[in-house]
């Protein structure tokens, strides 16, 4: 009923007014959808090119050669590619664990405690995020070179933990600061001691923030090229470094397979987590 009367009045409005109203209600969704398409065009290309055939000389090609599922059935045909993915996963997991623990501790200190040197602490956490990756990578390299620390997996790990800490602090801090302190006070009023309050109230409430921070840290580490490139030394090849190096010879379609797998894997993981959350709430 209401809709019908609105339509009727709508028709009597002057044309330019109806036009701006139409624009207003459809413009924002249209831009939103265009933005999403823009984000997904390269993903579609990556997925499509994972079915690309190789050139007759066995090299990968940037343009379409022919349809083949070969890359999907023989992902590790070049053992270096799978070794590189393995290295990246290893570095990603280790630096995520270290970065998340260290960053979460700092976030707790910042939100929960009073201490001297708060300003300089905040600045030290903010600065790595305000520093371009070339500068982060090159300054660490300069340090390693001057102290003669051999480049390798250890130096890459050191670098990755360093740049993930700040992002973890910011993410966990946001979650912690949004918590209602009355919940913890209630637990204490009900005779929970500090440990119990932390274990049964604080930690479960902060957990999603910590999980988000860990996910962010892992994706930053797994995807990092610039800082890794500076500090890896000749012996280490992470997945992005492999992609970079293989570009000269033509990126093999297997790289696109791994890109697609990462994408669908992450999507499935996040959607599963969302579903699990929904089921739990019921």
């Amino acid at each position, binding site marked *: 009923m209401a809709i019908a009367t609105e339509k009727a009045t709508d028709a009597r409005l002057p044309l330019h007014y109806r036009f701006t109203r139409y624009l207003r209600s459809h413009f*924002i*969704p249209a*831009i*939103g959808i265009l*933005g*999403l398409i*823009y*984000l997904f*065009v*390269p*993903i579609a*290309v*990556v997925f499509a090119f994972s079915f690309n055939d190789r050139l007759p000389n066995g090299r990968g090609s*940037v*343009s379409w050669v022919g349809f083949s599922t070969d890359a999907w059935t023989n992902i590790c045909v070049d053992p270096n590619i799978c070794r590189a993915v393995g290295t990246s996963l290893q570095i990603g997991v280790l630096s995520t664990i270290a970065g998340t623990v260290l960053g979460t*501790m*700092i976030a707790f*200190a910042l939100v*929960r*405690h009073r*201490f001297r040197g708060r300003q300089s*602490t905040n*600045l*030290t*956490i903010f600065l790595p995020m*305000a*520093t*371009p990756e*070339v500068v982060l990578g*090159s*300054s*660490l390299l*300069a*340090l390693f070179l001057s102290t003669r620390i051999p480049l390798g997996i250890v130096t890459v790990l050191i*670098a990755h933990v*360093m740049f993930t*800490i*700040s992002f973890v602090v910011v*993410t966990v801090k946001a979650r912690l600061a*949004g*918590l*209602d*302190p*009355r*919940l913890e006070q209630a637990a204490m009023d009900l005779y929970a001691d500090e440990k119990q309050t932390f274990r049964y109230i604080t930690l479960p409430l902060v957990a*999603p*923030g910590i999980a988000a921070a860990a996910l962010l840290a892992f*994706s930053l580490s*797994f*995807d990092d090229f*610039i800082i890794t490139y500076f500090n890896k030394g000749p012996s280490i090849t992470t997945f*992005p470094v492999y*992609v970079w190096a293989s*570009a000269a010879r033509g990126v093999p379609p297997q790289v696109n397979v791994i*890109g697609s797998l*990462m*994408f669908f894997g*992450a999507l499935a993981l*996040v959607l599963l987590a*969302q579903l699990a959350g929904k089921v739990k709430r019921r």
Partner: protein
Amino acid sequence: MALTLTPGVPMAPGGEAPPERVKRKGKTAYFLLIPGMAWLVFFFVIPLGSLFLTSLERPLGSGPSAGYTSALRWQNYTEAISKYDTEFLRSFWYAGLATIVCLIISFPLAYFIAFRAGRWRNLLLVLIVAPFFCSFLIRTYAWKTILADDGFITTFANSLNLLPDDRILATPLAVVFGLVYNFLPFMVLPLYASLERIDPRLIEAAADLYARPWIGLQRVTIPLAMPGIVAGTLLTFIPATGDFINSQLLGSPRTRMIGNVIQTQFARDALPTAAALSFSLMAVILVVVFTYIRRAGTEELL
């Protein structure tokens, strides 16, 4: 990050804010801080200091292979900057342009997700982040395929006579395009986070008081979204300025940015030049960041 704002967690939506937490004093704070802060001091602050010393080193012979010795050679800075001033300016120009384009695309996108998406909100947020799990080098290569000279987009734009160089690849357009693409989520997510916190009743109130939608946006929505706009522009601008991947893969020698120069100088062992350039870049960025934060009147990032 924003995904974690699930219902069921008391966030006092729109109502009274939870009471201020009483901050505890004691030694626990230092116990929590020391491991992480030590890591940052050893592997971020000290390297920066050592980079600064490197930037003042004096060459022992002619050419980088002869090595360097510590000195206070401030000329390194003037020499490096005057030699690479084009790349410097170009980096800030490309990064600034990319940031503005990102903001123009991201604001409606974030607004849509925050106010119009309803129950699709979480799914849309996941979709914004999801492309990030497909390595950024791979995605940039994909753009190389899409924008290729014989590709659909270039042919189409050429048939309309839109391109001055008859191609997209290897032009500044391609580099800025790549920068916009790669840093878009860094703009969308903070924007979303601050738009989502706005009470929609405030925007309605503006409309009830006869503010035209444009005025309401200008006077209510944008000021309230300012922390997100500041965070988003910084998170886009800073990495875009130092980036060398997009220029390397999508551009040409004519689109070289300062990141490319720093990287090649390091590869050539011209450490003082590379260090002086890195330090100048960082100094300019910090000045830009702090003036910007002052101007925008928000220190939420700090």
